[in-house]
């Protein structure tokens, strides 16, 4: 191994690390399987894709930059309500709805990032939690706008691209959510393999050292926080558009906690962790809630404890560990 490292230039070595791995291509091909294998579960599949996108946005700040958030659903909710309101007030075109939702979530993300970038660890958890609760109560009290406890009704989406209507079986919904997930995944992948991606990992690894190499960490954190907020907003908008309803739980504490659980299950800082975690979590929830409608969180709890105890780097980390051991032997 040392020999081959010495032979190639450092530039080539870094280049090789960004290349698409065959397992990545296999993963994305596998996302098409639901059309064939589970045509009756496409609605669930689209929910998974949305949860995966939401988890991906959290991975950018938590997994890469080490910014812990327990209030990330705030941006998901802003996106969902924005997309819902845009449609309710007469503009049902899905893609522009997404863009407007991303903009709204991004603006709020940018505004809060000025506070976020100055804190770490426990203080950050409390701050994001506080922001999340604050926004949840605002949405609750502004019933004239959001519909309050009853949720936002009267959303009607136009046909996607003027041709595909959102059907009952979720075929359009899944294709739409999957396509958006894939495009934004490509964006995230590009980002983490860029100099900025390296900067984020530097912030995660040693926040205090960054100023000593001349890095304006605060401005870097503001950038990624804004980007993550916008992507979370798109995820929320997708949920609003595909289900044609928005309820208060779209920005509640439970959803913030859930997305952290999804990312930790899958494995943070690996780009695919949120995607794998979303599949496992959503399928497990669907199965468990079918078996025991009241106590399904019990099983989710067992799953979480088991993963954290035995797979400290998440399910994906465990798989990567196994394959590297298998390759060595």
């Amino acid at each position, binding site marked *: 191994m040392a020999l081959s490292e010495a032979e190639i230039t450092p530039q080539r070595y870094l280049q090789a690390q*960004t290349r698409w791995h065959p397992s990545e291509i296999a993963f994305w091909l596998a996302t098409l399987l639901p059309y064939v294998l589970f045509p009756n579960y496409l609605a669930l599949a689209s929910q998974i894709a949305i949860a995966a996108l939401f988890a991906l946005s959290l991975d950018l700040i938590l997994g890469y930059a080490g910014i812990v958030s327990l209030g990330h659903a705030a941006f998901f909710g802003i996106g969902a309500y924005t997309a819902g309101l845009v449609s309710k007030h007469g503009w049902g075109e899905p893609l522009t709805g997404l863009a407007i939702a991303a903009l709204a979530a991004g603006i709020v993300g940018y505004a809060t990032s000025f506070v976020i970038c100055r804190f770490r660890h426990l203080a950050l958890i409390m701050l994001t939690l506080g922001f999340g609760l604050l926004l949840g109560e605002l949405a609750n009290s502004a019933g004239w706008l959001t519909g309050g406890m009853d949720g936002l009704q009267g959303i009607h989406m136009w046909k996607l691209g003027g041709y595909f209507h959102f059907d009952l079986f979720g075929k359009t919904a899944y294709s739409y959510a999957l396509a958006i997930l894939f495009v934004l995944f490509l964006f995230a992948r590009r980002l983490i393999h860029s*100099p900025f991606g390296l*900067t984020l990992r530097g912030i995660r690894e040693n926040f205090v050292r960054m100023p000593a190499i001349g890095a304006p960490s605060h401005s870097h954190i503001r950038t990624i926080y804004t980007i993550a907020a916008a992507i979370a907003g798109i995820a929320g908008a997708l949920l609003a558009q595909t289900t044609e309803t928005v309820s208060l739980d779209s920005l509640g504490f439970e959803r913030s906690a859930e997305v952290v659980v999804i990312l930790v299950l899958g494995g943070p800082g690996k780009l695919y962790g949120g995607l794998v975690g979303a599949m496992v979590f959503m399928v497990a929830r669907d199965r468990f809630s079918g078996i025991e409608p009241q106590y399904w969180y019990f099983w989710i709890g067992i799953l979480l404890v088991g993963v954290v105890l035995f797979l400290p780097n998440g399910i994906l980390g465990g798989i990567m560990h196994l394959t590297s051991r298998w390759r060595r032997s």
Partner: protein
Amino acid sequence: MRGPALSTRGLAKSFGSLVVARDIAIELPRGVRYALIGPNGAGKTTLINLMTGMLRSDAGRIFLDDEDITQLAPEQRVRRGLVRTYQINSLFPHLTALESVTLAVCERRRVAGTWWRQLAAYREEIGEAYEILSALTLGPVCHRPTRELAYGQQRLLEIALALATRPKVLLLDEPAAGVPREESKELFAAIAGLSREITVLFIEHDMDIVFRFATRVIVMVGGRVLVEGPPQEVAADPQVRAVYFGKAMGKSDGLRRESVP
């Protein structure tokens, strides 16, 4: 003639009633190798923290190349060429050595914020990082994660990170702390081999090394500068001798050598 590379005037800092720096006025001429010595708790690291902006001073001014930098944030001082290393390794455990130094080079070249181009496309930046590592004998291990490097190699990586910012003034806080004596000579040989364009100030307890590598010495005691001058003069100074021999000091603080080569 140009003024000093770095100077301070009336620098002061206290934590409550504890005064850690009082009226510190020093001038570091260009290209000089300065040793900063003094007993534990004399305020040596505090002085570095004040100069680099990691601590805010209560009073006084700091000048880099005659420019007043007292109000600048730490990263802005780094960008102007005032750079430090840490006494205790402060690195990026899961980044490789090459990634760490490339990160510092990218920050200096103001490309660390670009997300739309692949890192591997920045061939010059990566090449420069690799050169810095090679010059410090870290080339062969540049793809190892930092946490897997030997301790001495991590000390070298501290210096590599500082060099990647192209410093004018380099402040080294006990660069050889925790390194075996033989290796610390090699480490200082690497420091001595740095360009004469760089002004170096290092904190060091081993007097052998101080006398071998420093062109001038500053002695600090109790938050004040006691004496400043060439090594021979400092060693012969009665005040310095009183500080080092008058009280019982740790053995690392003792002046081991009296004659100077």
